[in-house]
């Protein structure tokens, strides 16, 4: 069951609090660092509530009753309730995308020049995690692509270690052709998918 979204004033929530159906839990949808807003569905045995706009909030008072109608969360309430959890939130990662010619584990010249930026990011943070994932386009077999994606990722890993990055903080994975930057049908050559992503935390 989906309840129609309504914008009840905060006073109504206060009244319901006074009336004794006190909410135990609450869920608020907020914009992400890129100011994008997703969606969330909160479901109890009594029903479902959809959050879809920034600041949308629903409360849950029991497992048997439906989540409350959606209201707009008061920014001051958010700041007070979530101050510590928001203050401890990890900073956004620094992400770098490096590109390769077809079938090759050597970087394109433009991407080779970005290695210095990665080292800079590792040093500045100071990084405690560097995740390297290898990717390829949809040309070739699953096995061939997995190996190529892995070899690309390891080539970058070895390069960073050679430049002084602590190998203990590096993890290397192959996504094969399973996580394309630009989705294509199988068999299509797409330079933007022949890449290694480096996420510095």
């Amino acid at each position, binding site marked *: 069951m989906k309840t129609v979204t309504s914008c009840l004033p905060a006073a109504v929530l206060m009244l319901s609090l006074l009336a004794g159906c006190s909410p135990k839990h609450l869920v608020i949808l907020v914009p992400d660092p890129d100011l994008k807003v997703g969606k969330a569905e909160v479901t109890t045995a009594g029903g479902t509530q959809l959050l879809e706009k920034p600041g949308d909030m629903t409360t849950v008072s029991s497992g048997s009753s439906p989540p409350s109608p959606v209201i707009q969360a008061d920014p001051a309430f958010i700041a007070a309730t979530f101050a510590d959890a928001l203050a401890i939130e990890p900073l956004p990662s620094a992400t770098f995308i490096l590109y390769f010619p077809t079938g090759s584990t050597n970087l394109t010249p433009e991407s080779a020049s970005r290695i210095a930026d990665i080292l800079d990011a590792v040093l500045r943070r100071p990084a405690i995690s560097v*995740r390297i994932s290898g990717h390829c386009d949809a040309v070739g077999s699953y096995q061939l692509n997995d190996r190529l994606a892995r070899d690309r990722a390891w080539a970058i890993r070895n390069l960073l270690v050679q430049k002084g990055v602590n190998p203990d903080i590096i993890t290397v994975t192959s996504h094969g052709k399973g996580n394309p930057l630009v989705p294509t049908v199988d068999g299509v050559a797409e330079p933007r998918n022949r890449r290694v992503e480096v996420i510095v935390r």
Partner: protein
Amino acid sequence: MKSLGTGLLLLLFASSPAIALPPDSIGHIQTLKGTASIQRGDRNLRPSVGAAVFCGDLVRTGKDGAMGIVLTDDTTLSLGPDSRLVLKEYAFDPKEGKFALVARLFKGTFVYLSGLIGKLAPSSIRMEIPDATIAVRGTKLLISVGE
């Protein structure tokens, strides 16, 4: 920065608090404040920044505690004081097309920010709270769970 000698780079990297991340870990602790603990099987561990987290870990923060966890797909889960969660299910294997992220939030305040699983397989993400489940379709949520 780029002009620093390699020797200095090595020295600086060596002083970072990280420990080697085991291959089966699902993420690590990025930020930490006050008291916190991780229960892994029958062991009770004191967490540190850079330490690995595993599927099944019961993570707690004390009354003065707070913690930020980063999972391998770049999802972040932050806990305010007096909070408790279990990382119940996790799979991040784009090559095989396997994805799952299920956390049970028992109590406290939480900030969820979606990572790559949210982009590649949003329907595989679920937060469970005592009286309800939250199907997360991205990207950032604040969740408060009472006793």
